[in-house]
């Protein structure tokens, strides 16, 4: 009968066209290929001698079409390249989480995860069950974290020492970034800024303003607050002992908000009358505002000519259209309320500052608030020759600020320059020797992956990594647990003396999320794709 034949030869389609699945070996192959590709991509940016990448955004439409980006920040690179491989996406996600949680170490976490997966390739070739590898890794991770915790030092009780720790951490973080030439200068700048926050991790109080021109070393930390706005016309450009009212209220035409209300008049005269009434309403409002006895008025929304003129007459400085973030920050900095109704002047707290003046940076005028009530806020003004440099500098400063503020919260530190990694690797290796069973192979592989991090740092700097790493390992095995790589001179050295420190929280998070992600990828034995959704081309831009 023909029926048998058709069943035998006709494949029965299980998935919708476009969808499909990759099984076992093939799935694993594509998973590893994706992970390794992502790892190799960012690998070269690791360490003080790491290289940068140029990213060019999509040609075509969109707001930043064809824009250039020069960076060595792992999270930025990965978020911009738009990967398609599912496993690569997992790695991109962990680098993003690392960025959100700690702010730095985004490259390390991806490299460690991809090195772990590279090791697995060999283990799987030896026919070791993925679940066995995972069991081994878990033991290795907890051992690594245990030993990391045992050397972590907490100097927060000694303020002098803590400050120098923070300086060292900032220097270490900056040494792999574009600002490394001026790292001492910028470290001091960032440490000063973070210490002003008094232990808060909210970085909103620190504002970064970028202005093209001049040299990077002309960047400075501005005590107080800068607002990227101009003072209205005919108003004082400089004001001492300012009493500031921060508001969020319409100052254009104060509409009647009741739904469905509209103006309907039959003669032009009536229109004029209404206009007058409106004007009067505005005048009332301005008078109410003036009753607060303020000499500066900052509004989130627009201020039209008429009220502005009224303010100018009274000698009140009015600043319009400060964006939402600006207003919130101002309120925080100046210690005032954000006000929307003006009937209770006695209840409203006014913001205060000693001096408001208009200053000029490059070609732009900005408003500077100095001597503010709460000394927590400050502004970092970055100068640089090109937009790319400025952008990268901002990212670097942001990384440093994040790391520092997290360190203030969790003040334990550990050693950089590959010392922490080597320390963990040595401890994990020892665990491997002690463990019986197949898991020990997996544990050893974890140690190898950890050792890859210093190896890559050395490779990137162009030194003989095999030599350096074996020296370093020997040093660690003989108990010199603070030794790491000195990439200035191409030798191993004591990290305490060089002052290369890193935040404990950062290192811990790197090991933890890399292990978690690698484990997750390793557990996958099937990749199932749904058909790609067909999209209509978005025609709105044309």
């Amino acid at each position, binding site marked *: 009968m*023909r*029926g*048998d034949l058709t*069943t035998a030869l006709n494949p*029965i389609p*299980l998935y919708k066209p476009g*969808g499909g699945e990759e*099984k076992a070996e093939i*799935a694993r192959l594509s*998973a590893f290929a994706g992970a390794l590709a992502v790892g190799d991509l960012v690998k070269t940016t690791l360490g003080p001698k790491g290289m940068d990448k140029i990213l060019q955004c999509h040609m075509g439409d969109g707001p930043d079409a064809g824009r250039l980006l020069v960076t060595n920040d792992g999270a930025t690179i990965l978020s911009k390249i738009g990967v*398609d491989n*599912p*496993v690569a*996406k*997992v790695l991109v*996600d*962990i680098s993003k*989480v690392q*960025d*959100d949680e*700690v702010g730095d170490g985004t490259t390390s976490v991806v490299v460690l995860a991809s090195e772990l997966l590279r090791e697995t390739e060999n283990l799987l070739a030896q026919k070791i*069950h*993925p*679940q*066995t590898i995972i069991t081994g890794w878990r033991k290795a991770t907890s051992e690594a974290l245990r030993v990391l915790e045992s050397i972590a030092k907490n100097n927060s009780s000694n303020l002098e020492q803590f400050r120098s720790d923070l300086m060292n951490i900032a220097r270490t973080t900056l040494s792999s970034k574009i600002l490394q030439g001026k790292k001492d200068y910028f470290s001091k700048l960032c440490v000063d800024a973070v210490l002003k926050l008094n232990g808060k*991790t909210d*970085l909103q109080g620190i504002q970064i303003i970028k202005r093209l021109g001049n040299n990077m070393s002309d960047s400075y930390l501005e005590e107080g607050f800068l607002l990227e706005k101009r003072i209205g016309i005919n108003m004082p450009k400089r004001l001492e002992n300012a009493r500031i009212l921060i508001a969020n209220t319409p100052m254009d035409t104060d509409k*009647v908000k*009741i*739904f*469905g*209300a509209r103006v*309907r*008049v039959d003669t032009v005269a*009536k229109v004029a*009358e*209404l206009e007058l*009434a409106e004007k009067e*309403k505005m005048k009332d409002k301005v008078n109410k505002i003036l009753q607060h006895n303020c000499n500066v008025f900052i509004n989130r929304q627009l201020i039209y000519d008429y009220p502005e003129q009224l303010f100018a007459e009274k000698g009140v400085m009015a600043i319009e259209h400060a964006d939402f973030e600006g207003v*919130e920050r101002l309120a925080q900095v100046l210690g005032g*309320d954000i006000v*929307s*109704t003006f009937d209770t002047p006695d209840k*409203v707290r006014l913001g205060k500052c000693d001096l408001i003046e208009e200053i000029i940076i490059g070609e732009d005028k900005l408003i500077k608030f100095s001597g503010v009530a709460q000394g927590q806020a400050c502004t970092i003004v970055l100068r640089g020759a090109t937009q790319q440099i400025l952008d990268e500098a901002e990212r670097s400063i942001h990384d440093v600020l994040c790391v520092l*503020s*997290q360190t203030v919260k969790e003040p334990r530190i550990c050693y950089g320059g590959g010392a922490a990694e080597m320390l963990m690797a040595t401890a994990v290796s020892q665990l491997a020797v002690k463990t019986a069973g197949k898991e020990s192979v997996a544990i050893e592989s974890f140690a190898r992956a950890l050792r890859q991090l210093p190896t890559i740092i050395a490779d990137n700097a162009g030194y003989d990594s095999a030599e350096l790493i074996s020296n370093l390992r020997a040093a660690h095995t003989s108990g010199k647990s603070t030794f790491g790589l000195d990439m200035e001179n191409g030798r191993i050295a004591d990290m305490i003396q060089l002052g290369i420190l890193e935040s404990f929280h950062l290192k811990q998070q790197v090991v*933890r*999320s890399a292990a*978690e*992600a690698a*484990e*997750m990828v390793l*557990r*996958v*034995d*099937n990749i*199932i794709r*749904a*058909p*790609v959704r067909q999209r209509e081309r978005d025609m709105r831009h044309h």
Partner: protein
Amino acid sequence: MPSVGTLAFDEFGRPVLILKGQESKKRLFGIEAHKSHILAGKAVADTLKTSLGPRGMDKCMVSPDGDITITNDGATILSMMHVENEIGKLLVQLSKSQDDEIGDGTTGVVVLAGALLEHAEALLDKGIHPIRIADGYELAAKVALEHLDKIAETYPLDLKKLDPLINTAMTTLGSKIINRCQRQMAEIAVNAIMNVADMERRDVNFELIKVQGKVGGRLEDTLLVKGVVVDKTFSHPQMPKEVRDAKIAILTCPFEPPKPKTKHKLDITNVEDYKKLREYEKEKFTEMIKAIKDSGANLVICQWGFDDEANHLLLSHELPAVRWVGGPEIELIAIATGGRIVPRFQELTAEKLGFAGHIRELDFGTTSEHMLCIEQCKKSNTCTIFVRGGNKMVVEEAKRALHDALCVVRNLVRDNRIVYGGGACEISCAIEVAKEANKIPTIEQYAIRAFADALESVPLALAENSGYSPIKTLSDVKAQQIAQNNPRLGIDCLNTGTNDMKAQTVIETLIGKRQQISLATQLVRMILKIDDIRLPGEAEE
């Protein structure tokens, strides 16, 4: 062509077309249809097979938009597979109904159904009529279910000793990626259920348990909040971040000028009108705030937005407020705090306020994201499981795993009879069913025997996933079960040295297992009864 359909010919030899557009339609019937069904069913089951058990693997699903989900939850995998085949779709629904009913064992049920189909194929080749096979399966399922009831044990359910429950939850979590902190997660699940369980009615209201995830931190940071966590923040940056002894007004009316629902036009024709409206507007806002103040509330939770002016008025009257809280969340808050949802300002009274002992804002990492945590509520039986994890996929998977664990614990609260997992009860049933088969005088005994073999597919898959030689391990365990007459022996997946599942505390609920067997049998019966598929074919352009 047989696959198009039977053709009738008239006396001139021209085909008589019976169906509209018959040429373009596809059709499969008879044995060919059966075979094709079985093939499709097997393909789906094979995909899931490797996910079974504590050493099962995960699947990586790529959604139509390119998002990644990594999971080993059978129901989730199937629902995201976008299966097109009709029989495949039936299996997807099978797993879904197991998920809806029991919440766990969604992989097992599909594997079992696949095995039943596979064994039916062999019987079809022998020339046994599909209906006879289906009847045999039905008989066998009855035997198996009766046997399950016999070997089931009643489990001690004691509110003071939660350990047994935690063990059950741990069995469920054992196969998931979060088995790193298995014990902690199991405790969270059990505590959550115990918190909301109604022991008199022996029921658990799932709506009172919310599972909320947030990327960051680590799995170990997952915690059970006896209260509600909402992804919202106070409406004004200067409101206090922490409120103690909060009396909460829960509103579903916006802080905006009133909007009459009937269509209307309000014309401003002269200056007086304009001024009047201005006054009215201002009055309204003051009235709203006054209504709240008068009721004695010191916190406002609102489903809608606030006008800037209202927002500031709230601040200046020291009324911290939260806006844009979604419908389900507002209900949860109302239940938790014992407050009433108030749709109009006028109806706000002191009795309708909710109460919470402690409300605070949580911040995370370097991003300025906040969540609101409402604790020490008046009726504290609502709770939220707050999941943390290193990346998005882990958090999502942890949420699914916790859901499974919650379901299992709930099932135990409903019915505290259990059977032993690790394939133990399947093997025991298989032995019993095979024994029973010999007593049947008709050809159904072949089908019953096939059913016994199919039951063994679960322990086989478990052994295979754990890296053992499947047939040898299974036959060893089976021999031991018969020799010792001990239905608690199963596959020792984790290589702990004992295959007594009681010692390993690998426990599954009786209703879960019962459901698996009866659902799988039902579905296979249904598939075996289909002998004709008609596809609409390509639509003509």
